[in-house]
């Protein structure tokens, strides 16, 4: 058994014990109040889940017994039989045996079908009272030991974990305070103490963070069925390949992306992968391939969904955008293929011509993109016509603590999550040009639009002119948004650091330019820039200046 299987088994055991306890309590309740539909439904649900879970864990005895019990409760729910008389004892016995199997999960010898019980449960449904009576008398020794079993794991609410993580954030801030202080007073003893405090604080932070992590498989496991259903509906043949299912990610991040992953999968099958006969004509394998892979690197998790379908056509996207009057045809011509793909993220843009049950209802990539933005992640598209499309999400491993680059604009400190940063460059004034009022950086073979942060943040009206750029050498942070690069001219680069982001409180929470604030070790306030909204605000201001 490998580690992952062990982990699954431990999770199953904890859940099964909990369900068993609940079922035991419920049937006692039911005995007193046989007509209680709510309790019957609850028992049915618990048994149903247990059956499914035990099935996937290949625990046949548990699965079978849960299945027969489920049938019994289904019959009770439908009113075919009532929970009374001699049936009650048999059901109690069966539930006890279920508990016995669960508590001895590690002993294969015990994991045997109890045929008497199984047959008895069938009789309960078919109504053979007499035979049940008979069974009762011969029924073997009770399997319930008097030793009560208490679970080895406790379940903890996410709220508590969130609170704990927040407290850890406070601890980190105090630690940073202390470190700055120790540096100022140059006391050796304090330095040593701070170092050991640092280590402890770091490992607490890590432990709390890992406690929140789950493997992406808990989500990915649901995909085969979903894909099968969509493919069947769309009359397509799809082969799913999953990679890196044991990558771990914050449970909240996973929850946020679950819907959008299904959306992207639907898109890939409905619009990406061609019908088998079309694929044959193009000399592709009839079976389309959908690959979902996850990996992590330096505090980021990358999840990609790629298909080998027809791909996205930048030309078609551009003409669609012009048709919808989102851009001028002149602007369309100036866009690179990559930037054209970025148009798919603009609200209201939908490529689908056909409305199906699964996609093309106008809930497009713009929603997907904004959901990912909301947790500080990013979405990129790579696509080649006729070859396929690849959606790559980069996500923070955790929602609250992020690696960030700190910089100064004017007197103020700002942070930018590393997730959003493409690169940092230092350029001389000569490589910066003003083209039609827009600052641009000429670099290698590309032209990057620049935003002069000092003017952007502190001027009433953002209208950059060259006059404001007095420095000869400038630091520029290049960020990615909507498949487009922007260069942010900052006043002074500080350092890279893990920061604990606090959400904005009233009355500041409507300021969308920032996703939160954090306190630096020096006691100074630092604003965390929201790249998605900052570039949107910038684009709005830009477009209000241009005539479309």
């Amino acid at each position, binding site marked *: 058994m490998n580690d992952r299987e062990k982990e699954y088994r431990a999770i199953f055991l904890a859940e099964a014990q909990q369900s068993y306890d609940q079922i035991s309590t419920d049937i006692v309740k039911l005995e007193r109040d046989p007509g209680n539909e709510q309790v019957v439904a609850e028992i049915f649900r618990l048994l149903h889940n247990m059956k499914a879970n035990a099935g996937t864990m290949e625990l046949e005895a548990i699965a079978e017994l849960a299945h027969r019990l489920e049938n019994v409760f289904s019959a009770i729910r439908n009113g075919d039989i009532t929970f009374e008389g001699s049936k009650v004892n048999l059901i109690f016995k069966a539930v006890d045996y279920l508990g016995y199997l669960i508590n001895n999960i590690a002993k294969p010898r015990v994991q045997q079908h109890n045929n008497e019980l199984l047959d008895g449960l069938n009789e309960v449904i078919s109504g053979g009272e007499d035979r049940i009576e008979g069974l009762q008398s011969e029924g073997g020794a009770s399997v319930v030991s008097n030793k009560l079993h208490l679970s080895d794991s406790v379940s903890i609410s996410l709220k508590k974990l969130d609170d704990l993580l927040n407290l850890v954030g406070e601890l980190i801030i105090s630690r940073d305070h202390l470190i700055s202080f120790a540096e100022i007073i140059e006391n050796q003893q304090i330095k040593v103490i701070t170092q050991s405090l640092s280590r402890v604080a770091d490992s607490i932070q890590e432990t709390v963070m890992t406690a929140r992590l789950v493997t992406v498989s808990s989500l990915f496991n649901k995909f085969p069925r979903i894909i099968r259903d969509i493919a069947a509906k769309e009359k397509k043949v799809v082969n799913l390949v999953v990679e890196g299912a044991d990558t771990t990610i914050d449970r909240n991040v996973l929850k946020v992306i679950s819907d959008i992953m299904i959306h992207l999968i639907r898109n890939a099958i409905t619009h990406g992968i061609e019908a088998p006969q079309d694929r044959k004509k193009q000399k592709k394998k009839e079976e389309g391939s959908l690959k979902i892979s996850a990996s992590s690197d330096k505090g980021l998790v990358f999840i990609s969904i790629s298909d080998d379908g027809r791909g996205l056509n930048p030309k078609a996207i551009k003409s669609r955008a012009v048709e919808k009057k989102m851009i001028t045809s002149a602007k369309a011509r100036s866009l690179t293929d990559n930037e054209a793909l970025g148009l798919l993220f603009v609200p209201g843009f939908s490529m689908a011509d056909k409305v199906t049950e699964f996609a093309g209802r106008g809930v497009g990539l713009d929603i997907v993109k904004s959901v990912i933005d909301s947790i500080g992640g990013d979405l990129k598209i790579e696509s080649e016509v006729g070859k396929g499309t690849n959606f790559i999400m980069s996500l923070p491993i955790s929602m609250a603590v992020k690696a960030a680059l700190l910089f100064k604009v004017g007197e103020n400190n700002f942070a930018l999550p590393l997730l959003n940063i493409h690169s940092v460059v230092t350029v001389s004034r000569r490589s910066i040009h003003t083209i039609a009022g827009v600052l641009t950086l000429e670099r290698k073979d590309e032209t990057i639009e620049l935003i002069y942060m000092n003017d952007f943040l*502190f001027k009433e009206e953002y209208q950059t002119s060259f006059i404001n750029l007095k420095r000869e050498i400038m630091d520029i942070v290049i960020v990615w948004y909507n498949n487009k690069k922007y260069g942010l001219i900052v006043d002074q680069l500080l350092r890279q650091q893990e920061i604990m982001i606090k959400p904005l*409180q009233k*009355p500041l929470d409507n*300021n969308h330019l920032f996703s939160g*604030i954090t306190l630096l070790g020096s006691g100074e*306030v630092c*604003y965390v820039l929201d790249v998605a909204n900052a570039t949107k605000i910038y684009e709005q201001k830009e477009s209000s200046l241009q005539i479309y």
Partner: protein
Amino acid sequence: MEDKDSIALVQEGKSKKNEVLYQFVTFKLGTEDYAVSIEHVKEVTITPKISKMPKTPPFIKGVASVRGDLIAIVDLEERFDLKPALKIKDAPIADSFTIVIDADTYTIGFIVTEMPNTLVLSESQINRSADVIEKARLKNKFISGLGKTNDGDLVILLDILKVLSAKEISQISSV
């Protein structure tokens, strides 16, 4: 509420007519004295270092750290247009005080130039229905009454939660 009142009673002794007593924190804005109910006041502190947040209206002075909490600091004189005409420049923020208000779901601070005080008023010292208040209510709903101190001074009682929940605050702070 009962608790607060009984505490006030203990502190002040019972008023003559056995009336309900209210406790306030008073401060000066412009030329007038204002008061807020003490139950919303978390603390009064010397104004900490404030960092101006870009793209916020001028009356939001910025964000400051008060005991590790990052809170918005608001200048109510500016918010209510009460800056004395002669005062051309702001008093140095370092010399001012910040009243930290606990507004249920969030914390906020506002700057006052003079040291705030506490004040106890009995129900009979509070006028909740004067003409001016009615008029003021129509314009802005955050004045809850007028108080008269034992020395005969007038204080304007603010319903602080209404001052802060005023929609316009959030509207102007949006970019």
